[in-house]
């Protein structure tokens, strides 16, 4: 059973690695974020498989952290994309110090 | 207020116990500092949850909640098979497009939950809302009865809460 679970973990990691091609191809940053999200879910699956195969229950906790970090990465991306990305929306986005190209000092 | 705070605290602390609980063979004396961290984490999480999601006076029908959960479990399984079928098909059978859904649930955490849940059902993905306060969905296949499926899910979700008339 251990061998099978290890093989499954390697397989899942392989599909994640294949999915990372999307980072190279893009074309938009949102597409690249998708690959990061895939790394989150696939990484959790691989870590859970490894944890059970090797009897290391702590790996499940690492998987949990990975899932949370992937989610936070996407949230950070979305809040960054919507506050700085749209140039047409005008005053709404330009709240005080959030404006990036502003170093009058 | 106090009841829902206590309920949430119990739920969150129970969740902490599941994830990080000092289960493996530690004696009570060794586990005490860990438990203290858990109690603190549970209390902090309850505080955050009460701030972000203030309790509402409505009651919950647990039968309807269970039915909703099992229906979405089934639908998300169908959704996975649907994706696999389309992805592996050499002709790539997709007919993507947008759908404006006149949602009946008022803007609330419930509506956000509806959007998240329906993003797991086959072929629909909540994208946002438009100026007419409709939910905008992106659909994988416009030939599927997407709107009818959304309407039945919404009817089920609307049945979960009911006003507590005995107050």
């Amino acid at each position, binding site marked *: 059973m251990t061998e099978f679970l290890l093989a499954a973990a390697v397989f899942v990691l392989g599909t994640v690695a294949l999915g990372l091609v999307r980072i190279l191809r893009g074309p938009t940053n949102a597409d690249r974020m998708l690959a990061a999200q895939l790394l989150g879910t696939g990484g*959790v699956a691989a870590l859970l498989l490894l944890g059970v195969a090797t009897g290391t229950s702590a790996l499940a906790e690492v998987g949990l952290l990975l899932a949370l970090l992937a989610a936070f990465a996407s949230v950070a991306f979305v809040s960054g994309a919507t506050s700085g990305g749209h140039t047409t929306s005008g005053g709404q986005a330009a709240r005080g110090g959030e404006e990036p190209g502003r170093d009058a000092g | 207020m106090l009841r829902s705070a206590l309920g949430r605290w119990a739920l969150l602390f129970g969740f902490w116990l599941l994830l990080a609980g000092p289960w493996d063979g530690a004696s009570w004396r060794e586990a005490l500092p860990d438990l203290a961290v858990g109690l603190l984490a549970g209390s902090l999480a309850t505080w955050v949850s009460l701030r972000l999601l203030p309790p509402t006076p409505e009651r919950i029908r647990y039968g309807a909640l269970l039915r909703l959960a099992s229906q979405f479990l089934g639908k998300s399984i169908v959704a996975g098979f649907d994706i696999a079928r389309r992805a592996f098909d050499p002709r790539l059978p997709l007919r993507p497009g947008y759908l404006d859904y006149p949602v009946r649930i008022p803007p609330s955490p419930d509506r956000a939950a509806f959007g998240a849940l329906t993003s797991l059902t086959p072929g629909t993905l909540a994208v946002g809302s438009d100026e007419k306060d409709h939910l905008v969905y992106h659909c994988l296949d416009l030939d599927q009865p997407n709107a009818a499926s959304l309407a039945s899910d919404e009817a089920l979700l609307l049945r979960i809460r009911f006003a507590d008339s005995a107050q």
Partner: protein
Amino acid sequence: MSLALDLFTIMSVALGALFFLAGTVGLLRFPDTLTRLHALTKADNLGLGLIVLGLLPQVGSVVAGLGLIAVWLLALLAGATVGQLLAGAVPPSESRQSHREGSRP
């Protein structure tokens, strides 16, 4: 009994791994950001769910099993929320243009 459980694990984990492959194939083949997002959220969540289901008979205790389910639920919650957020961040004009080429056989 143990053989039946092992068989159950093998089938469930293998099927789950297959859904990870489906998610990656969808991520690479689907024509625009939003259809790729469909592929990722739906296929990967089912894949992770099946792998967790398959691992349940292999962990020693009920608590460890509940922990696995908790990890899956958190990943599911994060995936659905993040999927919605990312979908909202995709400018609609962009994918409206690009989905035309996708509907061609």
